[in-house]
């Protein structure tokens, strides 16, 4: 049985997801675990990619040498390699899927629901956990109602007449994990104007005070075999929501930039560290964290606010688990073990025992 690594998808983070997926694929194959890369295209097709494929091969779309797959539901569900004139249709024998999709339908419960229906085991959040993590409004409400510290937040709609906190404001699409569509505006009137102009906000917009004095802090949570927190990281650039790999100039020579600038571990005082650790611990329960998630905070030296959660973080946050160190392969093994042991859903038909059907009589009578 192989491991499937699923990446791509119609999302702004499609490209970053390819990097995460290829890293996981390469690591599994390198360490002797048979794995197959499943690329989800921007137009919702699935293909199995060649093992040694590089990120560049995706620049134009589907890489050369890929084989089309169908995702089928039901008893014999799974990823099925299409038959041709010579080849027979063949279901991929997959033990589990490492979900390496970021943003959009890959991180909002859509693909998770589809994998559930196909009867596949997978890593990362369940459909419900992913949906909650992707909905910034629902997320904020859950955090606030649990009494945890978070910035004031409001839903901005055409009919919103005022806000009960002062500007400047930051506008974010209600759904979506990337920096795309984010606007910083000085006042309420501009915010309303942007709501009309910025189509990224048309599916829902949340507004928060924009606090230039706050910096980002991030921590990753693993849930299997037991819950573990990573070190806290301070990215040195805002909205740096994914590892930016810069394929720097082949002519310049030298190492080039390997990763985004960051401070790891972040230089914090003890009370900051313990506050963040305690918050992360509570949030893991509150948000049904499964697999590895990254929780982002906004802070200055005296305040700490929960900002958002990434239920499938870039590179699976492997770079955050440095003390104690967790090898990437070990992280993947834990994720896969959890995928097999901890179910993502519990469908129940208890109570649907036919009593209602028997007593219903004819449908026509109900309509009368």
């Amino acid at each position, binding site marked *: 049985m192989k491991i499937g690594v699923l990446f791509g998808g*119609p999302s702004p983070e499609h490209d970053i997801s390819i990097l995460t997926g290829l890293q996981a694929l390469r690591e599994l194959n390198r360490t002797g675990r048979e794995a197959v890369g499943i690329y989800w*295209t921007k*137009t919702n097709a699935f293909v199995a990619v060649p093992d040694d494929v590089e990120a560049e091969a995706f620049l*134009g779309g589907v890489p050369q040498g890929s084989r089309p797959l169908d995702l089928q539901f039901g008893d014999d569900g799974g990823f099925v390699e299409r038959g041709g004139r010579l080849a027979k249709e063949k279901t991929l024998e997959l033990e589990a899927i490492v979900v390496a999709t970021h943003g959009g339908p890959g991180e909002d419960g859509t693909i998770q629901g589809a994998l559930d229906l196909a009867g596949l085991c997978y890593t990362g959040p369940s459909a419900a956990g992913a949906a909650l993590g992707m909905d910034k409004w629902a997320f904020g409400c859950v955090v606030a109602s649990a009494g945890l510290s978070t910035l004031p937040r409001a839903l901005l709609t055409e009919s919103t007449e005022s806000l009960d906190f002062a500007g400047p404001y930051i506008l974010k699409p209600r759904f979506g994990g990337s920096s*795309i569509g984010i606007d910083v505006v000085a006042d309420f009137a501009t915010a309303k104007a942007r709501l009309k102009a910025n*189509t*990224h906000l048309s599916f829902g917009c949340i507004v928060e005070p924009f606090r230039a004095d706050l910096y980002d802090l991030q921590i990753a949570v693993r849930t299997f075999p037991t819950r573990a927190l990573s070190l806290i990281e301070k990215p040195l650039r805002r909205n740096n929501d994914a590892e930016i790999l810069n394929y720097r*100039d082949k*002519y*310049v020579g030298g190492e080039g930039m390997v990763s985004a600038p960051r401070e790891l571990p972040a230089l914090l005082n003890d009370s900051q560290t313990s506050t963040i650790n305690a918050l992360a611990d509570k949030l893991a329960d509150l948000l049904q964290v499964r697999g590895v998630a990254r929780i982002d905070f906004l802070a200055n030296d005296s305040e700490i606010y929960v900002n958002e959660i990434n239920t499938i973080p870039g590179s699976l946050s492997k770079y955050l688990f440095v003390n104690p160190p967790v090898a990437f392969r070990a992280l993947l093994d834990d994720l896969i073990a959890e995928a097999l042991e901890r179910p993502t859903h519990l469908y129940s038909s208890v109570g649907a025992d036919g009593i209602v059907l028997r007593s219903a009589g004819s449908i026509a009578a109900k309509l009368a």
Partner: protein
Amino acid sequence: MLSVVEGIALSGAFFAQLVRWLRVLQREHYEPASLRLFFARWSAPRAIGATSLRDFGREVPTSSSAVLVVALVITVARGFDDVGIAITIVYGLLCPWGLSVKGRTGPLHWTRRATTIGIVASAASVAIGISGVFESRPALLAIAMVWVVPVTLDIVTRVLAPFEERQAQKFVDTATKRLRRVDPRVVAITGSYGKTSTKNHLADLLSGDARVVASPRSYNNRAGLSRAINENLADGTQVFIAEMGTYGSGEIAALCSWCTPEISVVTAIGPVHLERMKSLDVIESAKFEITNLASTVVLNVDDERLARWVGRLRDEGKRVLTASRDSAADARVTPVGDTWRIEIDGEEVGEAPVVAGVEASNLACAIAAGVALGRTPKELVAGCSNVRAVDNRLNVATAPSGVVVIDDTFNANPASATRALSALAALSLSGRRVVVTPGMVELGSEQHRENSVLAQSVFAMDAELVTVARTNLKALSEGYRGKTRRFNNRNEAVAWVRTSLVAGDGVLYLNDLPDHYP
């Protein structure tokens, strides 16, 4: 009869030739005529490389291929067929010397099309080769098959063209369906140069506000565009930016018939692809096709020919938006020091910091297209901060050694080369200025002259010229009045730069040729 060993060796020679030329064919977009051209280029005498300015040695007025041809003709004419076989095997396996089987910049991809052509060409050649085995001189036809691989591929490609047509149509049908379902506003961009940049600039300008998809890379023909739509046009896309290229009249009209633009943008008319397009007039009328079905047309009026389109299109009842760097226009971008001054409708609407490698007239075209899409000046000015240069287009960096490196290896043309040279001239350097270039290609009968002019300009600005490969070596060496350094490929030139230049020096890498060019 041929011996088994001879048969196997000849087959090996044949396949080595097949893979080489099939790769050239693929890199040249399956244009059958390209094989003749590249065969001639590769078989021409080579010049000797030299790393120092004095030590050139003598030029050899011949090539290994030519020597082998003469040897073959003599031996076969005198009846020494075994020697002829040996010569053929050497040629097949090793020649043209330098044209690699595997490829560095672009390996052969065994796509369905390449595989089909390869199989048909092999089957035909093997059949002909074997049919000669029963003649009195059994090796002759087999020998011939190795030497005429480019011709065979040329013929097979032409014969299979109708079949390919049907295959391509299937992809177009799928793409058409997808376009209809997603129903984005379509912006089509063409131009002899600047179309890829303009496409990216427009996508960058709009990305903050809308769901935009641009055709990736330089996918701009029927196969590329249908693939771009099938694999990239995600549901919910609001604006699709399609790059359209052309090698002949009728091609853009055909693209527009199924990927119909609401807004068409034309960036420039210039001497590019002259090998196939013959004259500027032909290019101009081919590009004009993009306006046929569009209701709005954006034109770069810094281009004389495009400036003349304005009245004509307005007479046809189309909305025309002009874009310019140099004169008043509906959208104008003027670089003033480190800032762009942006004017829309004759009014200055804002400023944005200049991004190195972004050409003002391309940005102006993108802004005009943004206006056509209903963006406000304020949104467009804000969008300018998202604009990035195309990779390998005037990217300036400083190497750890302190040498300033300008990477302008993206598709050079005469206009972009001039800009790159001024960028090098504008650097404040204490030391040497060096231009490393293989010259420019696809300029047809103008190629020699344009490259010669390029070398003259390098000389005039007091920079050293380092030539790479030999495609344009003659033109470049003639144009440059002093001595030039020559390298057989880019890696050798880069290695020389790394060891020879020091802090305070600057190097411009101008254009890069794929390695199927000699």
